[in-house]
């Protein structure tokens, strides 16, 4: 048995460290199109102290470490591109504190979004967090590491804007705190200093997020999912402008897809409304459809697709089976809402070229300040040719995002290079300096965001 494995076992116990082919195989795979990248070890620590020991060991041995949350990025961001140790963080799943009056909760970062949702539902039904548009197994820490966004993105922005504090283990093993918790004042605010932005959105290349204070929001008693449907994609930005001006909705998503047929070439704008009283819901629905959207209804350019539907829990993985093939990957981009029509058209074109049913979706972030737009490409995991097509479509879409002056969100390595090639050189240099300062041995998720290449 290797000495590194023995040392890992000494830290976490025999059941939670492995270099067997089964664990290495499993963790070599991403759910998307990325080719397998084999780690040398997999370890699943339970505490931040154990993580610190693993990080110190990795520095001693000069072995790469790759933190892994739910493993849902689809972009291979937690694959060990240069081998090393995968640190599966999902055993760090405690709920440490819920402060209902100040509307925050402190959790260990490996906790799943599903567990957070269930805990709040069962114990604090008037509170909610923003659940990302991902399966519930996605972790809180993983979502922060990619700047995720979820079902309260319209009123409150990115999930990384909904954080009151963080605890992070640096690539050199020290533990730091960010926000009010760093001065011993509790976990109620991220601002002012020490509000450092070196960890959210850095894809686990600068440190391992171990604790998070999540902002909580009012969870209204009644929820309503309505659909507004238009055929002309050019109308979507205007509709979203009207709805964000109204400011009465909790989530706004426009989507279109070749499958199922009722969505083909139509744009379904999902409008989530919430209220504590039936009258409140009724009033908001009236304001949405009879006031904000009335001109589209009266002109016959838009119609109500559904009223008072249930808020569906995201089942995004269903896209993986469009080709009965168990796979899909998407390019996500942060774009101005005005680019929606062009993004839709170009996405449908790329999909058609690769014989993939098109699936696009745009979620409003903030008051139409931006949109997370995604192009999903399904593939058949058992048919390498379809995987190649999906991979090529993804690359073409990355190029498209750059050409449209968008910003690729959680890009895979190909997209990261496009982004870095376009990036302000001084900014890139600063990122490099930060990484070198934090990670002198270059052990943190190397191969991803190689700003010093």
């Amino acid at each position, binding site marked *: 048995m290797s000495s590194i494995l023995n040392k890992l076992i000494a830290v976490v116990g025999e*059941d*939670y460290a*492995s270099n*067997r*082919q*089964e*664990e290495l*195989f*499993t*963790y070599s*795979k991403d*759910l998307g199109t990325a080719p397998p990248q084999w780690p040398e070890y*997999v370890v*699943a620590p339970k505490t931040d102290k154990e993580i610190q020991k693993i990080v110190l060991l990795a520095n001693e041995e000069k072995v790469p470490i790759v933190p892994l949350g*739910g*493993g*849902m990025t689809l972009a291979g961001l937690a694959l060990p591109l240069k081998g090393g140790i995968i640190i*599966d963080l*999902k*055993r760090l*799943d405690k709920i440490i504190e819920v402060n209902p009056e100040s509307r925050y909760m402190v959790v260990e970062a490996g906790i*799943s979004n*599903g*567990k957070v*949702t*269930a*805990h709040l*539902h*069962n114990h604090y039904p008037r509170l909610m967090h923003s659940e990302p548009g991902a*399966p*519930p*197994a996605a972790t809180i820490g993983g979502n922060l590491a990619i700047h995720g966004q979820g079902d309260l993105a319209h009123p409150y922005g990115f999930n990384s804007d909904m954080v009151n504090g963080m605890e992070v283990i640096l690539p050199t093993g020290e533990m730091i705190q960010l926000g009010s918790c760093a001065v011993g004042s509790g976990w109620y605010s991220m601002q002012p200093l020490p509000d450092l932005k070196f960890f959210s959105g850095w894809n686990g290349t600068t440190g391992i997020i171990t604790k998070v204070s999540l902002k909580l929001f009012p969870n209204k008693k009644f929820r309503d999912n309505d659909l507004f449907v238009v055929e002309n994609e050019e109308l979507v930005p205007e509709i979203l402008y009207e709805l964000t001006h109204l400011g009465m909705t909790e989530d706004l998503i426009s989507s279109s897809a070749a499958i199922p047929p009722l969505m083909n070439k139509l744009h379904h704008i999902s409008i989530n409304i919430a209220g504590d009283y039936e009258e409140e819901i009724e009033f908001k629905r009236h304001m949405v459809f009879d006031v904000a959207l009335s001109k589209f209804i009266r002109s016959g350019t838009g119609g109500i697709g559904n009223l008072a539907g249930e808020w569906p829990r995201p*089942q*995004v*993985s*269903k896209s*993986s*089976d469009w080709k*009965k*093939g*168990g*796979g*899909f990957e998407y390019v996500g981009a942060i774009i101005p809402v005005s680019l929606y029509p062009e993004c839709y058209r170009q996405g449908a074109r790329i999909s058609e070229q690769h014989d993939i049913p098109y699936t696009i979706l745009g979620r409003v972030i903030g008051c139409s300040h931006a949109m997370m737009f995604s192009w999903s490409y399904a593939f*058949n*995991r*058992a048919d390498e040719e379809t995987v190649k097509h999906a991979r090529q479509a993804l690359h073409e879409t990355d190029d498209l995002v750059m050409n449209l002056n968008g910003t690729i969100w959680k890009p895979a390595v190909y997209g990261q290079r496009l982004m870095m090639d376009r990036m302000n050189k001084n900014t890139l240099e600063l990122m490099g300096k930060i990484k070198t300062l934090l990670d002198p041995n270059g052990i943190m998720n190397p191969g991803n965001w190689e700003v010093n290449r």
Partner: protein
Amino acid sequence: MTLSEYKYNDIIHRCFRCGYCKFPTDWDDVTNCPSYARYRMESFSSGGRLWLIRAWVNGDIQWSEHLTKIIYSCTSCKNCVEKCPHTFSDDLVNMVVAAKTELIKIGKIPKPVKDFLENTQLYGNPYGISAKKRADWMEDLDIPAYNGHDYLYYVGCDGSFDPRAQKAARATARLLMSAGVSFGILGTDEISDGNEVDMLGEDGLLEYLAQKNIQKFSKLGVKNIITLSPHSYNVFKNKYPDFGGQYQVYHYTQILAGLIKNGKLKVPDTSGISITFHDPCFLGRWNKEYDAPRKIIQSFKGMTFNEMARNRKGALCCGGGAGNFYTDFLGGSDESPARIRIREAVDTRADVLAVACPNCLMMLEDAAASEGSEIIVKDISEIFFPE
């Protein structure tokens, strides 16, 4: 090696590994897959296991003892089937069982599984105990051999041989007798029902056992069967028809609930006692029977009943299914599913953790002892007879 005969070659690649299968119905935690709860490595999750099976079938990874442990650590609890959002979800457990079948075909199975199957073939039970002792569970009860009675009371291997499960078998028999139910048993002629053999992938042995049992039942004219174990209930009800055995099958809780409703069974006074209930997978998720055990418990005088956080179709398996009560791939840790389940039961502040399955009874009582918990694990039938 490529296993071209693997039955699910055409769909196993469709698992996306999205992880819905780890959750219970209310999303309470990612630990509702018992083997994932125990090991917390993706390789032991439902999706990870399917990806590994596919890799093995396609020759991308080689057979290993660890691979067989991963495959056999699946308890067939069907939580994954319940939660998977995909159209092929009904086949998730079948895909694992088919992989076990392939392992048996090449003769490379873990020793405890081999022992289980050999014992069942040679002795008619996994414990390797002589069939002559099969009726010892009765002790001083005077139960007739089945001879045209209304019901055959099929006790099963656990109730026949395990000292703890024997008590439940006796309690159930006493209740049936006290209610005047016309029933008989097979005694030393009883053999394994084959449910676990099926879940371990030994379809040939299942066929052998089913045919032997069906021959016996036909000879005796059995039409109605009461089972102590939900495992027996499942295989008689859902598998035996494939071999020509059509019976009206009841789990004993279904019979007791009816007897109570009709006033034929005196309910116990459980004043001051708080009870919680653990759903057996082969009664609940496999056969959608969640109400009968609860109706019995809720009929008890003065009882307080509190559900565990994970219940009904969201219940966490005790970890004993698919032969794991014997092979014990999920034991040896405070994260063993049975121990997690005991802690959940304790969280309800219950005095008694009621079960309706001899398998769960054995697993959870052992777990309570390991936890040092004072909670009393009892089969529902035993609660009728306060000590």
